[in-house]
């Protein structure tokens, strides 16, 4: 075997496979948490059983925030240390975050129609959440269209870091402006009857988030390792 083969080169080494057990555990946790919430949570005084949508809508929004916080941390770290894996991890978290952000918007619309009588209003919370979604769709489009890997990493790290600054604006929008959207739901602001269900669903969705980011990062590293191997072939195996 040559001295520097793809399996011995740290850049070309294939990443370890993301545990299937984590994926299975997250699905089982989500089914259990949702079943518990649907079966045990009492109807809300104002909204009745519509309140059950909170168990999917609120955790989806929290996962969006967590994913974009990961984007911020690893984008800044990339800009500082220029480590390729930081760029790949930020991009993986951005894709997963955009997915949860889209889910949050859809669930909000499904909840808004019976609660407010409209699918959508241009209030501060909904608009800032949409802006956040569009920023990260733009981030993913940027990565798809820029071929040069260094340039792509630098530009997307800048967009990712600036985009993630929108997260506290989204979170505080219901406090800073008059909105149709209710104040943030959290175990601190909820009746005790709903807190366990919300916590369980948040933990279950957090497992899903971790699995998705790890799996997407594994794929990103494989793709990058493939690019490196192809470049090595193009340069005559050096």
């Amino acid at each position, binding site marked *: 075997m*040559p001295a520097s*083969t*793809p*399996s011995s080169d740290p850049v*070309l080494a*294939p990443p370890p496979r993301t545990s299937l057990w984590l*994926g299975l555990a997250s699905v089982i946790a*989500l089914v259990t948490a*949702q079943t518990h919430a*649907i079966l045990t949570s009492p109807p809300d005084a104002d909204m*009745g*059983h*519509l309140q*059950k*949508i909170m168990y*999917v*809508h609120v955790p*989806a929004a929290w996962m969006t925030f967590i994913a974009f916080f990961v984007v911020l941390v690893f984008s800044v770290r990339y800009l500082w240390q220029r480590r390729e894996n930081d760029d790949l991890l930020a991009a993986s978290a951005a894709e*997963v975050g955009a*997915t949860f952000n*889209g*889910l949050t918007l*859809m*669930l909000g619309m*499904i*909840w808004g*129609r*019976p609660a407010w009588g409209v699918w959508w209003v241009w209030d501060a919370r909904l608009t800032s959440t949409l802006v956040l979604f569009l920023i990260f769709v733009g981030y993913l489009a940027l990565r798809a269209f820029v071929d040069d890997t260094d340039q792509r990493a630098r530009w997307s790290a800048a967009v990712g870091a600036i985009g993630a600054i929108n997260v506290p604006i989204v979170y505080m929008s219901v406090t800073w402006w008059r909105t149709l959207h209710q104040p943030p739901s959290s175990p601190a602001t909820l009746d005790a009857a709903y807190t366990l269900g919300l916590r369980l669903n948040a933990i279950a969705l957090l497992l*899903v988030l971790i699995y*998705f980011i790890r*799996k*997407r990062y*594994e*794929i990103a590293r*494989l*793709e990058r*390792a*493939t690019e490196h*191997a*192809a470049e*090595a*072939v193009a340069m*005559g*195996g050096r």
Partner: protein
Amino acid sequence: MIASNQTFIIAAYAVTWVVILAYLLRLVRKGGRARAEYERAVQLERQERQS
């Protein structure tokens, strides 16, 4: 009113699962393709080094 609310609750949980399972399926398929391409690229590189 209660029946129509139930429709929205079912829709919310259905959308959640559709999005999660669709993204999972995308990751599984993309991961399979990426690993196959990686194996092919590595094999090519090994052949190049040996020749």
